[in-house]
């Protein structure tokens, strides 16, 4: 059913506000197609992260409809199923890596999906290997460097084989080499993704389209190639 539908994520007239703060999202419309790699850019506080949280069902919109993989989301039960297909990489890797060792954190999602411990460990090892993180299995998560944490948290999400990946400012605070590694990982993926970033250069190299947000709406859409020429 999802295969036939070219639209993976469809938001219609979404409104959202945090208590005590004005509207964050204002009649927002958003659509992510198959094989689309979308960059989301905009000033701080314009609602980029909020949009991601809405997609994951972590916040509930005041009005509007969210359709993910052809299914309209009505509540927590729908989102619970949807989260198996949607991977979300948090901005701060310390929020994502809560297990003592790397292998346990990578296996966590698989175990939640009902895989056996042996299977989960085997798949996790393979995932780490494919990200050039072999040998990290028994490293202690809090002792990793910032770049290693980011790559491991990417692994924890990718290992669940999501159909759509959401990344919230994946390059913040990372050195050039780690950013290069992340760009390579993203370019090797064959799934659709949405990436929030403030760096045009990074977006130009990883996305097909760039949406600019302002005042809780998507103000401007264009192809990433426009920025590629400039950079």
């Amino acid at each position, binding site marked *: 059913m999802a295969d036939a539908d070219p639209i993976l994520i469809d938001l219609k007239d979404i409104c959202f506000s945090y208590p005590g703060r004005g509207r964050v999202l204002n009649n927002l419309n958003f659509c992510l197609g198959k094989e689309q790699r979308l960059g989301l850019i905009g000033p701080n506080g314009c609602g980029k992260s909020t949009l991601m949280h809405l997609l*994951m069902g972590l916040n509930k919109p005041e009005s509007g409809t969210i359709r993910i993989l052809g299914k309209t989301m009505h509540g927590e039960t729908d989102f619970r199923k949807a*989260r198996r297909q949607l991977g979300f990489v*948090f901005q701060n890797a310390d929020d994502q890596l809560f*297990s003592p060792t790397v292998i346990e954190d990578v296996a966590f999602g698989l175990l*939640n999906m009902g895989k056996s411990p042996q299977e989960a460990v085997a798949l996790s090892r393979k995932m780490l290997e494919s990200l050039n993180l072999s040998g990290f299995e028994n490293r202690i998560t*809090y002792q990793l460097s910032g770049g290693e944490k980011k790559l491991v948290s990417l692994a*924890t999400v990718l290992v669940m084989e999501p159909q759509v990946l959401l990344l919230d400012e994946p390059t913040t605070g990372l050195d050039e080499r780690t950013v290069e590694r992340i760009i390579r990982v993203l370019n090797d993926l064959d799934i659709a993704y949405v990436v929030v970033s403030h760096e045009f250069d990074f977006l130009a190299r990883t996305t097909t389209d760039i949406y600019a947000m302002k005042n809780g709406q998507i103000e401007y859409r264009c192809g990433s190639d426009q920025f590629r020429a400039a950079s």
Partner: protein
Amino acid sequence: MLSEAFAQGKSILHRLDPRLRIVFATLFSFLLAVSMGFPTLLAGLTLSVILVLTSGLPLKDVAKRLTTINIFNILLFLVLPITFAPPPAFLLGPVACSREGLLLAARITLKSNAILMVFIALIATMSIATLGHGLNRLRMPRKIVYLLLIAYRYVFVLEQEYQRLSTAIRVRGFVPGTNLHTYKTYAYLFGMLLVRALARAERVYQSMLCRGFKGKFYCIHQFSFSSTDRIWAGYLLLTLILLGGMEWLMPTLF
């Protein structure tokens, strides 16, 4: 910074099955804590010294850890003899001292040192992660195990956050003193730490939800109980029986 300095090592105790170590250390502590006879306590202390020596840990560092508890024990020696009822057995200058109080302080000292050394030799020689999984395998409720593991995981993040905040106030010229401004600043600092910890807990929970968390934790670790473990389990059980026997059969010497 917290470190698991003792967890790295190659001694036989480091290699023993964590479950065996946890169970023995727990039983030993309980047995010694309820024992009253000095022979039992001294035997327990000897056993703990032997275990520390077997673990091959740097003795200087072990002594450093023991200092903390023994400073407290010195306090007991100073306070218990003069405060213990029934009234005094002998006089030390103008101060009335009770023999019972002195013996009690000695018992507490023996017990605390023996128990602490057994924990240093058996429990401190495994990482917190191993301890958590060992407890898990021993059917400790998962919620408690994960409370331990996650608390340990985020202590470091909180410590960093604390360091960042306190550097930030220092570079703006804050010098702690005995005044309201200092108290207020520290109150803000700890308040902010608490608020941030809460916010972080929320985000960690959200990230777990995003990976399909349904309130159940799974453990990927398997421990194997080797023949060495079996032999050691025999020895350790025997010492427990001997210690218990000493306590039961021998009437108190004093």
